[in-house]
């Protein structure tokens, strides 16, 4: 029999502490949609996505109503389009595919569809190159399509040609969406060690090792962790870690329940639960505020990396027993514009790009939703990507860069994206030049510890 205190604890988490299921993401393989004819390709993609995901949004809404747990986002990830569209020849064909994905997303009622992607960590095929060149236009002419490019893995090293290209592509994407302060870049992620089952946008795609369709669920609840830590003020770190673990366990059990239920109702296999703490701009839903609750005056103060390392580790340890399959990115996200505490920390000068880079060594992903001045060069952006890719490859973890060189904006300005994407204060980048480094091209070899066979 349930105890009253248990019931009321759950209700409080949902009603006051922002506990929610952040996303139910349906992965759909588009491998069988390939064609060398643009119209056939686009029709097959549209038909398959709208058929397979026809009931996704309704099912999520039903689960939300019956279980009383908010399910914030319903999303779709698809096979990297550079693979699906390899037989068409023109850049315009990739734009047509992006439009077909956008229409399919609108028809199914999801807010984002991910997978306008290429995996080029060792080298790019002709199709990869065409897709990457089409990203700026694709993100400018669509609303819901998200793009990602994997430029490095621990096994292969870093494709520095792709790193250089992505700097230029990010600049071009910002310019193409200049009227919206470079909004297109908020839908573009450059990865190292990208995962195949990530349910979170903008980096989700349906990997080649995945089944025909799959349900992946991302949980959230920074507010719940923060409130739990408020009850152990001043306690030593073992208690802090245990408190986070207990909370993460409970949060993840929600995710497991919803994932199983969505999988059963949609008759689609359950893939993974992503044990992530994903903040939103709402007050009380911030990862930065968890770090500050541990005793830091502001996120970014010395000690922040240690606090984040403890948090990230405890979330995984607490969550892992709560679900049958863990996957995705799993950990604490540190997007700047999507986290009220991070925004405040940047605005008051406590948090710099350099400190964020250090934090990405121990967080779940990387530099996320960072606004930089519009005149930041493509080479500097590439160098930022290279640094993140190096952290990822050497430390065997996923890292990513989602950076917005907001046209016409300077340090001190802010960029309004609205909704979950929030408000980004423009951050300073190094004024020293990295162009000659980036121009070298080629590949940075895989680290020695990749040779494990």
């Amino acid at each position: 029999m349930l105890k009253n205190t248990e019931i009321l604890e759950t209700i409080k988490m949902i009603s006051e502490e922002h506990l929610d299921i952040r996303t139910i993401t349906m992965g759909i393989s588009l491998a069988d949609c390939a064609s060398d004819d643009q119209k056939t390709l686009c029709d097959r993609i549209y038909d398959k996505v709208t058929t397979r995901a026809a009931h996704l949004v309704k099912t999520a809404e039903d689960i939300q109503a019956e279980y009383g747990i908010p399910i914030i986002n319903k999303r779709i990830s698809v096979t990297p389009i550079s693979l699906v569209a390899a037989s068409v020849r023109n850049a315009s064909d990739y734009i047509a595919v992006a439009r077909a994905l956008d229409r399919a997303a609108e028809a199914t009622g999801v807010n984002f569809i991910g997978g306008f992607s290429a995996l080029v960590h060792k080298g790019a095929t002709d199709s990869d190159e065409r897709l990457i060149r089409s990203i700026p236009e694709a993100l400018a002419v669509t609303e819901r399509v998200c793009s990602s490019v994997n430029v490095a893995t621990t096994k292969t090293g870093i494709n520095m040609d792709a790193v250089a290209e992505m700097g230029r592509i990010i600049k071009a994407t910002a310019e193409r969406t200049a009227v919206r302060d470079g909004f297109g870049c908020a839908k573009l992620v450059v990865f190292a060690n990208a995962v195949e089952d990530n349910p979170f946008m903008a980096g989700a795609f349906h990997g080649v090792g995945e089944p025909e369709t799959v349900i992946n669920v991302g949980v959230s609840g920074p507010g719940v962790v923060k409130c739990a830590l408020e009850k152990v003020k001043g306690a030593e770190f073992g208690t802090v870690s245990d408190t986070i673990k207990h909370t993460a366990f409970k949060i993840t059990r929600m995710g497991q329940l919803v994932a199983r239920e969505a999988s059963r109702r949609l008759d689609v296999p359950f893939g993974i639960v992503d044990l992530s703490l994903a903040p939103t701009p709402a007050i009380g839903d911030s990862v930065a505020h968890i770090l500050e609750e541990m005793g830091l005056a502001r996120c970014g103060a010395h000690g922040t990396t240690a606090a984040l390392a403890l948090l990230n580790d405890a979330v995984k340890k607490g969550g892992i027993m709560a679900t049958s399959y863990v996957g995705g990115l799993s950990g604490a996200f540190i997007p700047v514009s999507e986290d009220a505490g991070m925004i405040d920390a940047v605005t008051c000068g406590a948090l710099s790009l350099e400190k964020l880079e250090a934090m990405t060594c121990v967080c779940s992903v990387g530099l996320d939703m960072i606004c930089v001045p519009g005149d930041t060069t493509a080479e500097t952006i590439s160098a930022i990507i290279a640094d993140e890719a190096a952290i990822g490859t050497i430390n065997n973890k996923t890292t990513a860069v989602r950076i917005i060189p907001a046209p016409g904006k300077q340090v001190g300005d802010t960029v309004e994206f609205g909704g979950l994407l929030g408000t980004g204060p423009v951050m300073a980048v190094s004024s020293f030049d990295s162009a000659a480094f980036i121009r070298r091209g080629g590949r940075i070899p895989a680290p020695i510890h990749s040779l494990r066979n």
Partner: protein
Amino acid sequence: MRAVITVIGKDKVGIIARVSRELAELGVNILDISQTIMQDLFTMTMLVDVSGCTRPFGELAGIFSAVGQELGLDIRIQHEDLFHSMHRI
């Protein structure tokens, strides 16, 4: 199928009567009731059996939310499994 109803808010006359009447009209059977005043707030949890309910379960959340608005209270009805999954291994 069983569900948990929680009623939280300022105490007043007739809360249990109003909620119980709604449940009776819907064909929902009350299995257990627990009610207390916590931090000046009226707090009630009910375990109910909805297998005889005349309306689809998904509609009940909206119905009780409306009753809650009428009474100035927060009323939720949620599938029992939500609480079991969080608090029981």
